[in-house]
């Protein structure tokens, strides 16, 4: 009975796909006119975090490699783009892609060296890397102005259009989120994405199927870093002020929480996760100082209640409860 209802709903959605899509698109476009500027600004932040969460999802959710240093890529993108536009006066598109490009190059180098490591070892290396990046940003006074941060980052200008109001920024981030979503989906559904998923399920089996595990891990890592760098440069040109503290370890944790809360590997899930974790502290503002206490409590509770994440759940079933792997006694 329930199954047939589900089926019929699915069929109806499928047949009315164009109607639903256009409704969603019109809704998203008209959103800034219906909401207060404050909420639009929140939506912009949610958009930035959606791109970040989707990018982390590629390496952690899809490929199964735990990275605790995503904020470093976000920060490198932001700083590169900001410095290029201030010192050389280049346009937003150029600096954003150069920022993302440099982030990707650094990710290739880091990935080739470290992605052989697994589990906690990879986690601590990525964490260590991000701390090193933050400390360099903090101490390279002549370039980054250290803890004072970079001020007066020019607002983005594309062709002759100057972005100034929240609404204009909203459309820019909306485009970025949509482009990220579509391109990321294409990657995950492609041959490349299948390789990533194979590595997540069982890297040894993937290897014996002829997948060059290290190569694909580095590719996932690099793509992930590229999008994070892009999000970083948008952030820099949006808030027009960045300092090393904006890209500290807490930020990596925030993004990871979004991914896990939404559901590892689920693209709509991580977007929902990002939305919730951006809005939750604001919604709880009336609770004043208890806000973060409750936030922490909710995060743990959510994990206990729904470990697979809000929209996660497609899981490859294993035989038996736990596969017992016989290991050498050490």
């Amino acid at each position, binding site marked *: 009975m329930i199954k047939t209802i589900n089926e019929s709903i699915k069929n109806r959605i499928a047949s009315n796909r164009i109607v639903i899509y256009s409704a969603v698109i019109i809704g998203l476009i008209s959103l800034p006119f219906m909401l207060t500027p404050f909420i639009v600004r929140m939506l912009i932040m949610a958009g930035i975090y959606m791109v970040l969460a989707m990018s982390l999802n590629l390496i*952690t959710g899809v490929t199964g490699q*735990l990275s605790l240093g995503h904020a470093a890529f976000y920060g490198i993108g932001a700083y590169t783009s900001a410095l290029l536009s201030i010192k050389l006066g280049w346009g937003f598109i150029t600096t954003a892609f150069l920022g993302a490009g440099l982030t990707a190059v650094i990710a290739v180098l880091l990935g080739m*060296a*470290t992605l*052989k*490591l697994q*589990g*906690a*070892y990879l*986690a*601590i*290396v990525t*964490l*260590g*890397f991000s*701390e*090193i990046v933050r*400390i*360099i940003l*903090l*101490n390279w006074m002549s370039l980054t102005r250290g803890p004072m941060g970079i001020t007066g980052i020019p607002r983005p200008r594309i062709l002759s259009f100057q972005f100034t109001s929240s609404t204009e920024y909203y459309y820019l981030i909306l485009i970025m989120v949509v482009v990220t979503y579509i391109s990321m989906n294409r990657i995950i559904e492609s041959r490349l994405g299948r390789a990533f998923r194979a590595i997540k399920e069982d890297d*040894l*089996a993937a290897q014996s199927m002829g997948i060059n595990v290290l190569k694909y891990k580095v590719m996932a890592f690099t793509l992930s870093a590229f999008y994070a760098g892009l999000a970083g440069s948008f952030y820099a040109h949006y808030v027009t002020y960045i300092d090393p503290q904006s890209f500290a*370890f807490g930020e990596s*944790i925030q993004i*990871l*929480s979004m991914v*896990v*809360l939404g559901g*590892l590997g689920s693209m709509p899930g991580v977007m929902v996760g990002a939305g919730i974790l951006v809005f939750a502290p604001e919604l709880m503002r009336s609770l004043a*100082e*208890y*806000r*973060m*206490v409750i*936030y*922490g*409590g*909710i*995060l*743990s*509770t*959510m*994990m*206990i209640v729904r*470990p*697979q994440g809000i929209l996660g759940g497609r899981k490859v079933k294993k035989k038996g*409860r*736990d596969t*017992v*792997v*016989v*290991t*050498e*006694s*050490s």
Partner: protein
Amino acid sequence: MFIQQMINGITLGSTYALTAIGYTMVFGILELVNFSHGTVYMFGAFICLILMSTFGLNFFIAFGISIVLTGALGIAIDRIALLPLRKRNAPKVTALISTIGVSIFLQNLVMVLWGSETKNFPRVIATKHIQYDSFRISYLQIIILVTSLVLMLGLTLFIKKTKIGKAMRATAQNIEVAKLMGINVDFIISFTFFLGATLATVAGVMVGMYYQSVDPMMGFMAGLKAFSAAVLGGIGILPGAVLGGILIGVSETIATGYIHSGYRDAIAFGILIAVLLIKPTGLLGKAVQKKV
């Protein structure tokens, strides 16, 4: 100068080592990076301070109570935030986020209850020191070193010689088989959290005495360092945690003394990354062949 830096480094490193033991024991059994551990370290130091300042207790009584309380907190963290996930066989990263949630919760709770500013930790031990040639070692440093050494030796003996220790080793080797052998695995895991939390409290209180201050954020960096120490030595291996802790402590003070204090933390992490690139299982770790 160099010997002085070494003394300071080993003192600092031994507190990292005590904290790292908690990470390494939990990881050995659950393969979980327990992010609430650094917060427990801070919590222990805070409880001790509050018991002394607000309730006017003697240092040793306050210290004792704070150890018991944080030990109970360790058990509570396992029972409330992790046991339900284990029961459902959830992915490990879920448990990681759960401990992050606990850490955010506790840290902000401390801020709400006692304020976020740095607090003075009363001077408990006289600030005397032994001068020898050109370097000196304070009484407090000696106490920290001796306490850490005694605790680490005690723990090693405990794990090697007692029945619970044996059960802990069995659980770390293979949870499923340990269960089959009649070991109450959940008890052992909770007990491990208890031990880790108490050691972290000892470390937290000693660091509080050493720097004469505690603040709600102190657990964060100390936690990261201790985690690095555990991984550097080879996570899951007790002597590895001690070796890693001392190495991180020494490299930090030497970096401060000879390079630049701003890069102190970067150098500790840089060494960690370099070691892992050469020896991916940590200094004392053995490569475990994965069998299919």
